[in-house]
């Protein structure tokens, strides 16, 4: 499985390339679009700001979901 998403991906790219990520992350309590607009940060920064304990694990799960 080729990882599609990394911690470095800007949220603006993530929601454009993989819109289904939005629902996946929201169900985990991580909201990457607000007021219909993507946040201006990377996925890694968002996970850090949200105090997600194992960000890489979220990325791995997301990649699995996207495949």
């Amino acid at each position, binding site marked *: 499985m080729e990882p599609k998403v990394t911690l470095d991906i*800007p949220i*603006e790219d993530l*929601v454009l390339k993989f*819109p*289904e*990520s*939005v*629902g*996946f992350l*929201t*169900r985990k309590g991580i*909201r*990457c*679009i*607000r*007021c*219909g*607009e*993507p*946040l*201006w*940060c*990377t996925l890694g920064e968002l996970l850090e700001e949200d105090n997600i304990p194992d960000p890489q694990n979220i990325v791995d799960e997301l990649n699995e979901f996207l495949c």
Partner: protein
Amino acid sequence: MKEILEKLQIKDVNVGACAGPDDWYEDPAGEEIVSINPTTGEPIAKVIQATEKTYEQVLHLAVEGFKTWRMMPAPKRGLIVRDLGEALRENKEPLGDLVTLEMGKIRAEGHGEVQEMIDICDFAIGLSRQLYGLSMHSERPGHRMYEQWHPLGAIGVITAFNFPVAVWAWNAAIAAACGDTTVWKPSSETPLTAIAIQHIANQVMADHGLKGIFNITIGRGAVVGEHMINDSRLPLISFTGSTRMGRRVSEAVARRFGRTILELGGNNAVIVAEDADLEMAMRTILFGAVGTAGQRCTSTRRIIMHKSIASELSERIVNAYKQVTTGDPIEEGTLMGPLVTKGAVEDMLAALEKAKEQGGEVLCGGNRLFDLGEQFVEPTIVKMPKQTEIVHIETFAPILYFMEYEDIEEAIQLHNEVPQGLSSAVFTTNLLTAEKFLSHEGSDCGIANVNIGTSGAEIGGAFGGEKETGGGRESGSDAWKGYMRRQTNTINWSKELPLAQGIKFVD
């Protein structure tokens, strides 16, 4: 579509940085963004985004343009804003259609949005002769004291997709009358409307031999947006968007002691009292919740209804929802278009799952409408047992939560419990209930209405909200003061040198 684009000078590939009629800046390093029609999923046209280099070129002219613009008498600036309003009037039809095409709101709303631009230009013309300062009586003899309002500088304007042109106009027309230039970063979802506006503004600037007054830098938030909020050449950033982004903008701008006008999230409620005109309430709620597919900052998201009328009102609203025609927003008769992106659809569906987990009962809607397109959803009503966590969150989609109350104190408590504080309304025929809602112990929002809904503000009033909505005010009333700097002046016309507070320093 081709005709609309041609009228507005939109090409297949457009340049996303401009500071005047002959000042479009293209950098080969600039990445392209594709503007997608949310109705069809088809591309409309492309825009080459601003880079650091082209951003600098635009900023240079915006700052230089300010030096000329601030010295032009305000009433003369008003006349130029009048020309901008006239140019918008002439282009209302195609511009309104482009708003619909690019953003997905229905045609009537697209045209209404352009009308809002025209209205604020009209307002700004009058304002240009009314930039009043106070004069105060000095406590020192032979002294005169007064205050005057000076232009502030080049203003950064960052707008969202849902009002792709009106919010720019709220800022740009007022700022222009005040003697400021503007640098606009529109949403990456709606770059073409910004290009169209820039062409119109360029023509007005060309007619008056000006440049650098109205400017755009189209690009990602993480690039152009971050540059703007950290750029001390922009003494004011007017930001419209989410609370989360607003916090980031606010922190960055405050770090350099800049100013912000923040128009952030809303979670707007209508209280429907036992004595309300239910027919009127139903129609207002329908427009407030379904209009712009629930993607307005002022969209109605919560109904707090008295127990005694809850059953009847719920039935009326659910029946009205079933009549809503969803489809191509450009078609006559359509009441609701698509959501702006696929991500927005995902966000809505995830919120609905949470609402159900938290005890919500879907009274109508809740599904995607694949037969219409990937970004179409049903307008949805969810009856909640109480105001749970998901109801405190603004989901930018047509989800309306129903809740019940027993007395007005409980209704106001529920109303004010959410962190946002933008728009609010009560439906009642009881004067005491209405006044209580508008009182100090009533609604905590920036906008509070009686017997009209939460959305559809007029330009004459100051627009904005409290708490996590950010506290900014735009558009009418005295919101112009946010775009100027106040200077207090004292002139000693005596031959003495008295100090204030009667202080003697040197005899």
